[in-house]
């Protein structure tokens, strides 16, 4: 009887202990995991990236991410990106989200990093056989859409001047190819020129193009270039008071570009849903950290914006994201 009692008391105590352990565990479970994620863009921290950043911040606040947004001192500097990549690994970040500034030059380092830290590519990609998630628009499609818009505006037998920089990031190349392929289907011709980076030189170059070529079409595939060309055109029109019929098309969105579209200085731009790129990059990175199933190729929708449709109900939601 004595032994039995002892056994009962012992089991009772054990039950109490076990249950309190369970309770404690439940209490501890509520501690939320915080992820450290570094984002390395391939440019300066300017407006071009602001909406992507806003999307990332929205996702970060929802998913408990400690976001570190790293911008470069010089646009598309490969060495700088490599440097930041190494620093990010050293800092013990949980994942790295990067927009590589070069298709080939960054392949090795990113592939090696991916073995240690989850990597997500956004906006542009690298030459790799590894299964690295890539979040972007179909840039080929983007270029194609731009070409379609150019043709839709009645440019069927024109000489199109494509401003091409020496940059080597993948999205730019894809856009270029997409545009070229579509234009080749029409009777338009095109030539590729390289524009100077300096504002005053650019002004002169654009001015000479506009003055020399009547009814010409200028196309830029990079946001910065589009904005520069647009701005130059505005100044030229202001300065000369001549309403040149040079049309400007491009890809990308900044407030300036939108404003220039509204003023019909830029005829159309193709924008990607940058907010989604930012949001889904973080989302994918978090899923990759948690080893959840991820979609390795997330395609973001893109929209052609011109002065007519920019205030449409749907487009203003994309064009002017409500960002807090």
């Amino acid at each position, binding site marked *: 009887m004595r032994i039995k009692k002892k056994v*009962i008391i012992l089991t009772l105590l054990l*039950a109490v202990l076990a249950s309190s352990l369970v309770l404690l565990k439940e209490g501890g479970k509520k501690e939320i995991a915080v992820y450290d994620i570094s984002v390395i863009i391939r440019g300066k921290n300017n407006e071009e990236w602001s909406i992507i950043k806003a999307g990332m911040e929205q996702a970060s606040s929802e998913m408990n991410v400690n976001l570190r947004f790293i911008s470069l001192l010089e646009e598309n500097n490969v060495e700088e990106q490599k440097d930041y990549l190494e620093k990010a690994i050293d800092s013990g970040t949980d994942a790295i989200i990067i927009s590589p500034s070069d298709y080939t030059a960054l392949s090795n380092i990113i592939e090696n990093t991916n073995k240690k830290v989850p990597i997500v590519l956004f906006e542009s990609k690298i030459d790799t056989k590894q299964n690295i998630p890539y979040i972007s628009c179909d840039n080929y499609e983007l270029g194609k859409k731009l070409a379609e818009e150019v043709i839709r505006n009645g440019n069927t037998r024109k000489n199109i001047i494509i401003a091409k920089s020496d940059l080597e990031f993948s999205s730019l190349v894809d856009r270029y190819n997409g545009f070229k392929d579509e234009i080749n289907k029409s009777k338009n011709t095109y030539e590729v020129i390289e524009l100077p980076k300096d504002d005053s030189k650019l002004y002169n170059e654009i001015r000479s193009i506009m003055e020399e070529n009547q009814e010409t079409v200028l196309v830029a595939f990079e946001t910065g270039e589009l904005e520069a060309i647009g701005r130059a055109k505005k100044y030229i029109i202001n300065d000369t008071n001549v309403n040149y019929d040079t049309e400007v098309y491009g890809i990308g969105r900044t*407030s300036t570009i939108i404003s220039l579209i509204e003023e019909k200085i830029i005829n159309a731009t193709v924008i990607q849903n940058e*907010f*989604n790129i930012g949001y889904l990059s973080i989302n994918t990175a978090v899923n990759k950290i948690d080893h959840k199933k991820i979609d390795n190729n997330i395609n973001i929708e893109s929209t052609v914006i011109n002065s007519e449709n920019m205030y449409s109900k749907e487009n203003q939601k*994309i064009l002017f994201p409500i960002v807090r």
Partner: protein
Amino acid sequence: MFNFIKDKLNEYYKKASIKYIISISFTVVAVAGMTVVGGALYLRFSNSTEEVVSKNNQTIIDQVNLNLDSYLRNMMKISDTIYYRAIKKIDMSVENIEKEMDLIYEANKDNLISITLFSEYGEVIDSYPLQQLKKNIEARNNDWFQNAKNKKENLHFSTPHVQNLFYDPNYKYIWVVSLSRAVEITNNGKTSSGVLLVDMNFSGIEQICKNVEVSKNGYVYLIDRDGEIIYHPRQQLIYSNLITENNKEAAKFEDGNHIEKFEGSKRLVTVKTVGYTGWKLVAISPMSDVTAGYYELRVFAIFIMIFAIFILISINMFVSSRIANPIKDLEKSVKEFENGVVNLNITENGSYEVQHLAKAIKSMVNQMNILMKNIMIEQESKRKSELNALQAQINPHFLYNTLDSIIWMIENEKYDGSIVMVSALARFFRISLSKGKNVITVKDELEHARNYLTIQNIRYKNKFSYSIESDENTLNLTSIKLIVQPLIENAIYHGMEYMSGDGDIVVKSYRKEKDLYIDIIDNGLGMPQEIADKLLIEKVNNGQKKGSGIGLRNVHERIKLYFGEEYGLEVYSEPDEGTTIRIHMPAIEFNSAKGEKK
């Protein structure tokens, strides 16, 4: 099925011990009770949490509604003020309303973006703050303009849209909610209609709805009467099609609490219609938030229940053992009693009833023991009386024979012989009686035998000779009275009577180890050993002979009765050679035997 269970239960109850029946029944009842009570409390509590959450949501949304309402009323007041205090009072051709606009704008700077007065053709008559109007503005294409013109008596709130009337030097695009109304403009004394537009900063509405804490994962959003989203905490995600909201359905809900199932999860939806605008405030609390507390509660409830059940089980076991153990002990004692344990120790503990039972059983056992003892004593006395009867049987038998002989001698005038005989008879009877004792010394017994032999020898006219040889160490040993004499009698009757030659009877007493032996040896007719063996067991009826073995068996039984089964007579015989009857008794000193037996 029910019967089957009932049978099984009955069977079980019949087999199980009282302790198990008590503890298991109690435990089953306790567990059932705990489960019912715990479950009921849990359900009651969880229902009340749901109620609390609903009520809480209602309160919160009422508060938000109040704020939003005052915000919107403020806007309407601005519109009213400009209209009634300025536009209606002045002639546009003479003066303008800039001063009034300026005043009101400055007073409500935080929430206002612009105030603009349009003519009925969509031209801007006046606006504040003074900004460069965009070229190619076609105000008439906008919803707010159309609404104001079509429903003149109303004020119209638009859904959020990007302000596109003025140039911003910083290329800023601001989301606004427009309040438009139709106005009458006096120009040169003529009245024409126009539209007054007040653009409110969308962030004003955002501020009101943003920091509302509904529940952990809950939120509040705002829709117009068609379900179009005005404010949502994840507005851009919805605009970008990354997530969806059940806004179209929510527009159909009446004010109050609803439960909806959206994207696989149940949510508590609280709807409140905002006055005048027809907008609806929708508060969403995922049921998982409401039930999040349940889990802990459930774990806690189960924990408490298990704890209580454990305590109940231990109490049950304690109580049942308190009740059952004395009964079990009692049962054990009874079992022992059944198995014939004599010195039974029945413990008296437990409840009053059990104590009583124990007492009763105890006294019963005692009574029974006494009865048993009495029976044994009775049996003993019965045996003794039987013994006595057997002894009594001898005396008349012999007396008759002897007296017969004496008579015969006196008749033949053999007086000497008769004197010897009578005196021998007297001695014989003195030993026979020996003060009523059953045991005497071997010496006396042999003396008794000698007297008998003397008598018989005279009777049979010295037809046989006899001798008694006794070892010195046997004389003082104990013997049952009258055992040798009947055997001698047998030897004379059966051995000598029909003998032709001289008979000889030898009586020998000797000790062998712890035993005493007395042999009666004759050289008479004898018999086959098989018959001799039977003599002691069954009554050999050969009819014609006197005595016929009664004496032999009597002696045998008496020895057995007195000393035990291992003692008694042994008969060895051979036809024409003679018979030896051996008495086998334990060698007990007479004095000690006297002390032992009464």
